[in-house]
């Protein structure tokens, strides 16, 4: 399949830069790394990477949570695909969203609570967790963060910089590939490097835009000032992208993107969605390995999950509500099928991160992936026992291999744990009853 990432370096370099001035890449030598491969030879640790993996419509209660608590656990039936990673990830069960009388908006409230620490009445009020993290760990890469979604709508991104700005998602693996590894990509392992004069010129013209900032901000009211300021923040990010393209990148052993992938048909048919997510997984993993970004956000599909089998009228979401519970099985088999495909795709993603070797470890070891849904039991829009997982060791910043049962605890404790383990100086997070100053101490190093 043309979309398969091949990690052969020669193959890689062939497809890149449109055949431009890329000479044969020198093999990356371990001397670039320190002795145990966790850091560059100059002592700089390989940076931590953060990712989210979201899917809609939850998992079936009683079928996904491990039966035992603590370190000695096994995955349950619906999470069996994650069993190979059980020692390198954590399962967090029992967590809850508090509404404070605000009224639940099905499939929206849960995702907002987990990612912004807040239950909005209408529109979101705050930046999302990944943006907060990116402002600390993602400021030196070409992309502050990369967002993808599998069911075709760019608006299905949960990543937002503020109340008014969200980061739209890529819907096509081919387009994502071009964006990351297309003409503007500078191969860190290329032998020669020459700054592109056109990039230099663009950089200087762009500063003409920035120069007008003060004058423009003066002309508008407070709300609009904030919006314009967000625009200028975006300009600074674009300038930074150009700056990065003008510098010779440090070599990276694991950086080896393959050729341009071919999309499976875009849409909501499950086989195509899974196929595209497999392509996304590989591009995102290589984007991190090539230091193009430190933050990635995957939305498996819209929260009101539109996944469907070809030729059927019922979507995953409709099934969770309308499919009768199978009396013998005790769950809805057709809806559950989609849950299985989602978990299988998450496992593939983790496997992909783990397949990228960096010294003694893998990319998964220096990553922290928060995988979660927005509801516990989708049939009734339950806002408790929401499935949440933290995968990867975050470069040794978090403990792994545990099932933590947090019955009735606010979902924001996960967000706080993520922030504190990634070195963000914050002592509490969330609003009203979701406010917490307690990370999940069992996981803290």
């Amino acid at each position, binding site marked *: 399949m043309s979309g398969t990432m091949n990690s052969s370096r020669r193959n890689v370099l062939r497809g890149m830069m449109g055949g431009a001035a890329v000479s044969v890449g020198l093999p990356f030598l371990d001397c670039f790394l320190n002795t145990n491969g966790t850091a560059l030879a100059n002592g700089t640790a390989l940076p931590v990477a953060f990712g989210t993996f979201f899917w809609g419509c939850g998992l079936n209660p009683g079928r996904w949570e491990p039966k035992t608590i603590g370190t000695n656990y096994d995955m349950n039936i619906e999470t069996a695909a994650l069993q190979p990673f059980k020692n390198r990830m954590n399962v967090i069960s029992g967590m809850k969203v508090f*509404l404070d009388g605000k*009224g*639940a*908006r099905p*499939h*929206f*409230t849960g995702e907002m609570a987990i990612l912004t620490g807040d239950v909005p*009445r*209408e529109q979101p009020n705050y930046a999302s967790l990944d943006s907060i993290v990116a402002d600390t760990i993602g400021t030196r890469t070409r992309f*502050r963060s990369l*967002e993808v979604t599998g069911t*075709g*709508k760019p608006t299905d991104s949960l990543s937002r*910089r503020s109340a*008014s*700005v969200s*980061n*739209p998602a890529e819907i096509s693996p081919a387009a994502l590939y071009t*964006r990351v590894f297309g003409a503007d990509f500078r191969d860190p392992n290329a032998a020669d490097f020459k700054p592109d*004069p*056109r990039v230099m*010129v663009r950089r*200087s*013209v762009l500063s*003409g*835009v920035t*120069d*007008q900032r003060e004058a423009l901000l003066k*002309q*508008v*009211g407070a709300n*609009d000032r904030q*919006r*314009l300021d*967000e*625009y*200028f923040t*975006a300009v600074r*990010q*674009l300038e930074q992208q150009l700056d990065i393209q003008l510098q010779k990148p440090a070599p990276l052993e694991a950086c080896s993107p393959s050729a341009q992938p071919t999309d499976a048909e875009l*849409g*909501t*048919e499950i086989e195509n969605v899974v196929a595209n997510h497999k392509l996304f997984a590989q591009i995102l993993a290589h984007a991190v390995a090539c230091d193009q970004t430190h933050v990635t956000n995957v939305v498996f599909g819209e929260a*009101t999950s*539109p996944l*469907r089998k*070809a*030729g059927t*009228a*019922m*979507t995953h979401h409709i099934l*969770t*509500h*309308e499919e*009768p*519970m199978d009396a013998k099985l005790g769950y809805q088999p057709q809806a559950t099928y989609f849950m299985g495909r989602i978990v299988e795709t998450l496992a593939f993603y983790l496997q992909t991160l783990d397949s990228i070797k960096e010294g003694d470890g893998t990319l998964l070891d220096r990553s922290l992936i928060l995988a979660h849904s927005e509801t516990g039991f989708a*049939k*009734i*829009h339950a*806002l408790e026992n929401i499935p949440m997982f933290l995968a990867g060791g975050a470069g040794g910043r978090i403990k792994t291999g545990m099932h933590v049962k947090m019955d009735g605890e606010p979902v924001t404790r996960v967000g706080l744990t993520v922030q504190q383990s990634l070195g963000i100086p914050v002592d509490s997070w969330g609003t009203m009853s979701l406010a917490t100053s307690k990370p999940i101490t069992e996981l803290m190093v």
Partner: protein
Amino acid sequence: MVMSNSPMRLFGALGFAAAIALTGCGQKDDAPVTKGGPVSLRRLTEPEYRQVIADVFGTTIKVPGRFEPDIRDNGLIAVGTSRESVAGTGLEQYDLTARGIAAQVVDEVHRTTLVPCTPAKATDRDDACAAKFIERTGRLLFRRPLSQGEMATQVKGAGESAAKLGNFYSGLELSVSAMLVSPQFLFRQEAAQPDPDNAGQRRLDGYSKASRLSFFLWDTTPDSELLDAAAKGDLDTDSGIAKQVDRMTHSPRLAAGVRAFFSDMLGFDGFTALAKDPQIYPKYSSQVAADAQEQTLRTLTDLLVTNNGDYRDAFTTRKTYLTRLLGSVYGVPVMTSTGWEPHEYAVDDPRAGILMQVSFLSLHSHPGRSSPTIRGKALREVFLCQKVPDPPGNVNFALVQDTKNPAFHTARARLGAHINQPTCAGCHKIMDPVGLAMENFDSAGGFRSTENDSLIVTAGEIDGMKFDDASGFTKVIHDHPQAPVCLVNRIYSFGTGRAASKDEAEWLNYQVKQFVASGYKVPELMRRIASSKAFYRISTPGTDANNATLSMAGTNTQTEALK
């Protein structure tokens, strides 16, 4: 806006309609005085962006790439644009698009027409020639003349780039792409100035008025004549505005404004991510979807603009336009092999009006089946400006039975089971009967008389008005007092980029009366709004002007339980 779970809230707005009375129609602006709205900052929508590029650089320039998605607020993207900003990802896309456009503008094909001078040397900077080009182009892109500082920045940027790259046109190219990513272009930033007629108050400056007018009536950037009028101060007077409004409403380009408004109101942006299951609906394709939108817009502009017809007839008209592809969906022979031909449905045909067209029917359905609930909600929110509350949490949807259940062959039967549950019934009683009236049409808009071998019944009742079938239903909507009220509200919001405030309720009532008296003529309504003082009035900061939004407007709700 705080949401209430009470479906009664829906009908709060009907008080409005009750105020309609057929009074005489004074032409002069004796309308109630409003406090005005804020000076706005609106991000260009994707269709606006595309239209502006076509108008400034010509239709042969391709606009590559994709756009940051727009937000819908109070029923309109036009309102959402007053909240939008640009994220890093979005700017990256704007930058790619801008570079793609700029490269075409200066290529050998286009430079001869778009660059008004020839540089002394093509391999070096020529600031005088660059300045000529930038002054002319920048004025159209920024919707006002460039300031001295802006000119200096652009000319310097173009010159230095040209010198560095050894190519005059590369310098211009960089300048064009810089203008296209600059906030002055991406945002319609209005400016206010002290109002000489009302001490202590402010008014919109002429260029801001020109933009409001032009995007409202023509869906594009102000043309040279309108900018000249702004420069001369003409737009500071009622007569100056009236003159331009007269010119613009009599132009064929008014149709573009009407189309832009209805594409927004009808939510046609939703088609970008709309898919139908190809096995269930083999005839449905992206081309059908594109033709379906165009069919509805043609039906509307033909009725409202070309024939200056009654807006309410949009729900009942038998006249439309078809392509051969649409003909295959509707089961109607179309002679023209390419393009459009007029068509009139027979009197006994179940299709009449825009609600029975593929665009509305397919946009508000599931990928694999129709949804009376989604259609009912859409009709209420889109055409009647009524907000259907979100479904409550922790509801067991097992009550709605599966399609295989032998007791429930049709959607009506399935939803009937639903409606008997008190927690659901309140809202579903509002949505379902409306949607069930359209059940003769499947998710892709095709006709059917049965579902699972049971006859589909389309009789019902909406807001106390009974109907026997789809055709009766369209007549009920035609006569629904809320429909014109909603349209007036939406058109005003579309032009101002904000939801109407409570303070403007009386003024809107006045406009509704005028609209009714005019025979529900949309161009006349747009002319009245564009000529009114309320349309341009700026609230004084610190007063209570930014008061609560008028509660009739439907907001961007989560349509969860409906999906």
